[in-house]
């Protein structure tokens, strides 16, 4: 039973979504909107699960005094702070001027943006040490990258300023993006779409069960 019920659920729900694409009326449209509503609610719980799991792991770390446990305490405290202000704020919790908004602007934004901004430095350093034109394919890649990188900023047009306007770098970049890139992306896209169709089919029919985990 532990295995069969999930397989039945997956089958029924998947089939309803496929059928309601073709048959636009009752009962499938009704089911589809029900499932859509449920999905939205389950999605919220999935996020809570993640948050609660984080709290669980952090608490265990503190209790067992594992390495770096003070940082786990910091995580829990900051979680609690924003959650408390969020609840306290009521429905307008994130209106400009609220404490929650203050936390969003000055703490959350600063931290999350900087975290991802670090990548700028890693890209640069990898450019110096790792990106090599070691064969024809890699050379092609780097040359295309140069065209795009120069063509998408004014400096490209400045370098090619001696050429007529429609032959300047930005037009080359446009061409690379709209023609060459489109062609390649399309091939990848069609391939991925077919892959997704066959994976989805296997999932709906219960041939693919790895998402259910072991035992």
């Amino acid at each position, binding site marked *: 039973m532990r295995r069969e019920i999930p397989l039945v659920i997956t089958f029924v729900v998947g089939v309803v979504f496929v059928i309601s*694409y*073709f048959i*636009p009326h009752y009962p499938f449209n009704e089911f589809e909107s029900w499932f859509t509503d449920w999905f939205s609610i389950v999605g919220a719980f999935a996020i809570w699960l993640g948050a609660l799991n984080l709290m669980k792991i952090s608490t265990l770390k503190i209790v067992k005094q594992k390495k770096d446990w003070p940082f786990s305490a910091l995580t829990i405290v900051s979680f609690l702070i924003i959650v408390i202000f969020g609840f306290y704020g009521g429905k307008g919790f994130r209106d400009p001027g609220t404490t929650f908004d203050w936390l969003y602007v000055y703490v959350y934004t600063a931290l999350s943006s900087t975290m991802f901004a670090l990548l700028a430095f890693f890209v640069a350093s*990898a450019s110096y040490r*790792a990106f090599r034109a070691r064969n024809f394919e890699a050379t092609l890649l780097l040359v295309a990258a140069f065209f795009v990188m120069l063509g998408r900023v004014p400096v490209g047009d400045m370098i090619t300023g001696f050429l007529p306007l429609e032959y300047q770098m930005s037009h080359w970049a446009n061409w690379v993006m709209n023609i060459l890139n489109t062609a390649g992306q399309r091939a990848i896209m069609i391939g991925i779409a077919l892959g997704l*169709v066959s994976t989805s089919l296997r999932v709906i029919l219960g041939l693919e069960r790895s998402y259910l985990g072991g035992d």
Partner: protein
Amino acid sequence: MTKQAILAGVILVVLLSAGAFGQDRPEAVVDSSNLTGAILPAPVTNIEAKNHKYDDGERIDLFWEKSVDDPDNIFGYKVYRIDKDGASELVRELLPGTTEYFDEEVENDVPYQYIVAVVGEAGEAPSEMTPEVMAAWEFFNFSKLNILILGFIVCGSVLFFISSAKSGKKLFIRKIGGLEALEEAVGRATEMGRPILFIPGILDLDDVQTLAAITILGKVSRVIADYDSKILMPVSRSLVMTSARETIKESYMSAGRPDGYNDNMVQYITDEQFGYVAAVNGIMVREKPATCLYLGAFFAESLILAETGNSIGAIQIAGTARPGQLPFFVAACDYTLIGEELFAASAYLSGDPKQLGSLKGQDIGKIVAMSAIILGTLAMTFASAWELGFMQSLLDILNSIFVTN
């Protein structure tokens, strides 16, 4: 019997609508009294009301050509709906420039008529009343029949090949270039007496890319067991750790050297992305592996790993289906399994009927796509260049197969 009933129904409807036509235009509908002495704007023309096709019988589409006074001398349009009792209702006021309205507040199978009035300074200029129209209910969306058929072809071939692979039929998959490179790279590490680093991405076991990586790990660890070289495998998920340990252990068993295996080959580091990368970097710098394999789902850490690998002079082979990271791997690694090649490699190595069959089924889909593109292009070219009639009809057929709206 049924036929007669339908006939009777049709006659009834015709009579009713004739009756509706016979009625005077309801006075209450629009106020066309000319109060200011200004001239009424020109009414809209060619008004048409249609049942919206292939829905649940919940919508009527209204189209018209805009008033010649639009946009300078009018305030907008008003849509009136008249039900079968002759009662009219203002359903919506629209902006100048509008030429269509979709009425979704109608009941199924009830006849309605419509009037669109142009609102100007002098008042409203009504259009003609449309013939009666009903929002009808259709069982199947026939405009999507082609999608269903194409879908059946792709899904059918996937299922067909899976079942034929299961029944023991041998399915041909071309050799994947990266696999040979993989074996060479392991050999090189052995010659140099240095370890091999294997990173299975940073996602958990429920991701197909991680699964493919574990399949390939089976092959790699078998070669390692045969050559008696050393493997390092820091992972960021505890489930991945368990299954990687089992895989490597199995390889050592089947190579006849169960004593060569130990659990330290696979180590769990941390779930935290950057923390994991920092730790792996440390291992790379300390142990100086001769070969680094990055197979699985990667995010921003791809280029950090590849850079460190490069700085210690390792041979690097990567494979991922995440398009965002592929450029960095291709530029920084010696060999890269691109997208589907990762899954193909896994299918090739494992011989799993499910994977092989899907791969084959997808190939059928690609044949359909490629032939449609080539045929369609030829047909369109000939049709436009020499106006060949049969080419135009071929093109029309292809268009009807691939049209989606």
